């Protein structure tokens, strides 16, 4: 039987809030860093299509490194700071963000790009005002997968991070060490709820950014 000490949770709400906040930081900072790098590489891919193969290979290689090993390797360099978690987490987002951003930018039909050129868009302005908005559905699909994956990986980081980092994952490791089920469930379920909430927010953001994708049913 699952035996949860609700009173313990009630007494430690401060702790829950703090670890949730850290979990969010370990989501947002790596995602942002990963997105900036992936986007820059994707823009490079438009100008130099030859870079797609090598960049995909390298980001793919990063993705194959076991997460626990990656956190452990960084401990001697960055110590028990948040950076030890942020760097691998950002690296793991690169593959999916890069591949989806490239696919998104490439999904713009050639006649749309040609029309933009013919009307006198500069290449930067075309990228920002035509290609990027049209790439949003595919980019957001990548962002959602990367976000949910990252939320899960943060709990793994807790194994290395001890009481320093790991967000809600710290409840799981502490619960395992002290044989205290409530903490394990709190960490696991909390992490899952966080993933659902973040994913829901991202869906909302995508709907906000892409009103045209819902505009259908005219006189086709």
């Amino acid at each position: 039987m699952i035996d949860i000490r609700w009173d313990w949770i009630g007494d430690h709400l401060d702790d829950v809030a703090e670890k949730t906040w850290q979990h969010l930081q370990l989501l947002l900072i790596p995602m942002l860093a990963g997105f900036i790098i992936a986007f820059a590489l994707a823009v490079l891919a438009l100008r130099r299509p030859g870079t797609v193969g090598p960049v995909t290979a390298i980001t793919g290689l990063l993705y194959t490194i076991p997460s626990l090993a990656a956190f452990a390797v960084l401990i001697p360099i960055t110590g028990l700071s948040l950076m030890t978690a942020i760097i691998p987490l950002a690296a793991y987002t690169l593959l999916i963000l890069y591949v989806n951003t490239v696919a998104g930018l490439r999904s713009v039909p050639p006649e749309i790009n040609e029309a933009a050129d013919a009307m006198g868009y500069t290449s930067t302005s075309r990228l920002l005002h035509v290609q990027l908005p049209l790439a949003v559905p595919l980019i957001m699909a990548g962002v959602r997968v990367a976000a949910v994956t990252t939320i899960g990986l943060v709990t793994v980081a807790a194994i290395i991070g001890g009481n320093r980092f790991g967000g809600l994952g710290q409840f799981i490791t502490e619960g395992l060490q002290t044989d205290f089920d409530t903490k394990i469930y709190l960490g696991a379920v909390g992490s899952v709820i966080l993933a659902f909430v973040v994913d829901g927010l991202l869906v909302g953001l995508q709907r906000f950014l892409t009103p045209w994708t819902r505009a259908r049913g005219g006189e086709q």
Partner: protein
Amino acid sequence: MSSGATIEFDHVSKHYDAAARKRGAGGAVEDLSLTIPAGRICVLVGPSGCGKTTTLKMVNRLIEPTGGRILIDGVDIAEVDVTDLRRGIGYVIQQVGLFPHQTIAQNVATVPRLLGWGRARQHARTDELLALVGLAPDTYGDRYPSQLSGGERQRVGVARALAADPPVMLMDEPFGAVDPIVRERLQNELLRLQEDLAKTIIFVTHDIDEAIKMGDLVVVMQQGGGIAQVGAPAELLAEPATEYVARFVGSDRGLKRLSLYRVDDVALEPATMVRVGDDYATLRQRADAADTAFVLLVDDGQRPLGWLDRADLPMAGYVSEADANPMSPLLDRRDTLKDATSRLLDEEVGSGIVVDRNGRVLGLLTLGAVMEWMQDDRSRQVPDDIAEAVAEAVVTQIDVPDEVATGGP
């Protein structure tokens, strides 16, 4: 509104190397020299791979020529900033290329926005243009392209191209993707707009019928990117310069010529008419004077009611509507001779009644009059600027391949 600019091609060539051809580059262009007079529609027509689209895209530098110069109102476009050049040239393509993530109003305002117009001015211009192409701004402005039909989208495409009132418009098979009924309507609307706007338009098509209908000047291009013949539509049809052009314009070119003229152009025969209530004696008198057996019965507004055959009518009394036989076809004075002749043949009569906008009888069109007109030199008259452009254009000497693609899908 600013009207058109002169576009001059001065020995323009575009050659592709083997690698580019492998990637699917368009047709090459070979030493093209041609001047398009301001305010005219010049149609480039030819089979695929003849370089017509390449020629078009060199005007807004989507493709850079490998030789020669293109001048707009005397200015070499190679020396103009490419974005400035493009913002001054309207561009309409078959796939339309509307931005799916922008509303119709935002799409139309694209070039004004890039030019940095104020919001109010953009808005006013957008409404004006949507109304111009027959789309109610209040209904359509906030929709997205995916909510429009193919024909509506193409109208938006035209409105977008006109937004900053450019003197030059480039149209690459603009009506190639819509069904024939919508295509004809869009063609007519463009011609109607052009009467007021007088842009210089380069219009690419592979459809010889569309070329003849839309063009003030038609350039027939051939494989290898050269000009086979330049002429006004009537000239091409009446006197194709080569076997290639003759085959391209088709063996029905006599009928196609008919589509160039309106019933208005031909001398109509006067109709002998009586009104309801006139007496039969008057009728006979008029029939004798005109030496005809048939008299047209009209109402007080001189609108036709039917034919009266004098042989069938009693000697005395008054004409009533019941005497009238069914009418021969009613032709509008704006109908093309092709449509009018077709109606006559279809209804197996030798003449049709021509009416004006109010339905009043103007006269009769006979097949004989149509034939006379076609032999008349006036049917081959060409405006001076077009004649000059034809005289100056350089026809390219290229070996013509045997198999020739003909027009029309």
